[in-house]
């Protein structure tokens, strides 16, 4: 990750700018409010602890997104949301998060990192492809490919989860 020459922003400013975005990102990847809140907080804790270095990165938010995704995957492993949660949610006697959202979150977590971020930023946050490319530090054509492949994989994986 390249470092930038400009003066780094303060953590408080980063927090103001990113806390809701991280909440949303966490929600996309878990479909569970309390888990999303935990993930956003844990991510921000990590950002703060590494702020001296992270604040000098070209894109501290990219680093934060990566941490959040890692935490989300780790969390899903711990709680077995993919394997067990779907069954629990599918159970008629269990009330829980929307089944389709749980499934969507599970397959988003399974996507390769770049595709996951590209789909979330473009389709979730509604950012134009050019802005996604800027945020991910990748050429526009590459990001287009990530978005396309990510979407295709989501549909395929959702189909797979259904079975």
């Amino acid at each position, binding site marked *: 990750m390249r470092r930038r020459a400009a003066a780094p922003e303060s953590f408080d400013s980063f927090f103001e700018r990113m806390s809701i975005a991280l*909440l949303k990102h966490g929600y996309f990847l878990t479909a569970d409010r309390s888990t999303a809140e935990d993930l956003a907080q844990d991510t921000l804790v990590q950002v703060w602890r590494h702020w001296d270095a992270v604040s000098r990165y070209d894109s501290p938010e990219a680093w934060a997104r990566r*941490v959040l995704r890692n935490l989300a*995957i780790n969390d899903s*492993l711990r709680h077995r949301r993919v*394997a067990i949660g779907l069954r629990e949610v599918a159970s008629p006697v269990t009330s829980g998060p929307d089944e389709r959202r749980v499934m969507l979150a599970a397959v988003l977590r399974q996507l390769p990192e770049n595709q996951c971020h590209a789909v*979330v930023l473009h*389709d979730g946050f509604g950012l134009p492809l050019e802005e996604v490319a800027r945020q991910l530090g990748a050429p526009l054509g590459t990001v287009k*490919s990530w978005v396309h492949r990510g*979407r295709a994989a989501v549909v395929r994986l959702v189909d797979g989860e259904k079975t």
Partner: protein
Amino acid sequence: MTRDDESVLRAELAAMAAEVDTWTNPLTVSQVKAAAEKSGPSAIDPAIRMGNRRPLLYAAGAMAIAAAVAAIVLIGLSGGTGRSMSGKGQRLAMNPTVYIDSQRTVLCGADHLQLSEVRTTRRGGKVTTTVRLSTDSSAQCDIFDAPQVVRLATSRGTALPTDFLRTPNIVPPGSDVAPGAQWMFLDKKDPLSFEVTWANWCGKPPGSAAIEAWYYGNSSPATTRLDLADAPGGSGLSPACTDRAKPSTVAVTFPVPAASSAPAAAGRSVRPLAQPPCTASQLDVTWAGGEESLGSSAYLHVYVTNLSARSCLLDAPPALSLRSARGPVVAHTRRLPFQTVLPLVLAPGESAVTGAEWTNYCGPAPSRLAAVVTIGGTSDRSRYEAIQEPTCSNTRTRSTLGIVDYAPYVGPFGTSAPPTHRDGRK
């Protein structure tokens, strides 16, 4: 992906984002800083860490891969043939037990991993075995990615001289998770399956063999016997000898849930050997093309629907081309590295979908195009549709059609909506 799929995905994510906007932000700067102070310092960058014990896992993984590679090289050198894994009873030194998170979920050990042969077929000169991977352990355990090393051994336990082609999805030593790599959860009720493909065998057919697969973190392989008999009195199944100067190879696919490769819930089943291959005359080819043209690439989605009264088998990657009224438009095709679900049985009325990414088109703008699918030597085409071709990015390189393998089509997000653009010619 169709417009429907895309809009459903976007709508769902937008609804989730809107929901978050209604929440009161539970986070505060002081809370975050206090939590950081409480949890103490960390020397490990969490952006390259995935769990409390993941660094240990990476270290073990790096050691395991290094050991495997070293073993392959040493065995190959000692054999003097340039081929690897020719020794008998070789053990790859790997860490026996690795925990992957604070709740001490354990990697599946070889003692509890069970391989079983589902079927073995010979296609295109290669012998492909579908292997079922399950566990007999009452505890849940995890595996990571494809097997790290797979080899074939004779019934006497002697390794056949084959080179193992590493699956691209495995984790590079010392790095973060590779694209496509993932943990998979294994328990008694959720078996997985993968395919082992053996190619270029110039020796005597072994008659029978065993597949030995080393999984991440295991010091010994899981094994299954392999029946290579073809017919009574025959010499047995073995791959065609395509090049004596090159080693025989063994490759594996990324494991998928056994249920998804045999999606019974969707009314499909994995290949029964007696299933006849699909023919173009049985299939209706339809497409949604050019709707997602993103400048340098146009994305096309082609559906094949079994309009006949009997089930048939799609057992080869799609042979897809484009043509205008004047003739073929794209000469160069390549297979995109998506996870394959072949072979795929299409029951009457069922559809499969394949996707294509068309790039760099510098020819005259075709007003209307048709997708042509070739199966078993005969072709069927869709209706001609007006699609937006990709932009010309380099006049000196070929226009390319990257094609993904067939997947079952069950509609956007599992709904049973049929593909659009049916031409109804059959």
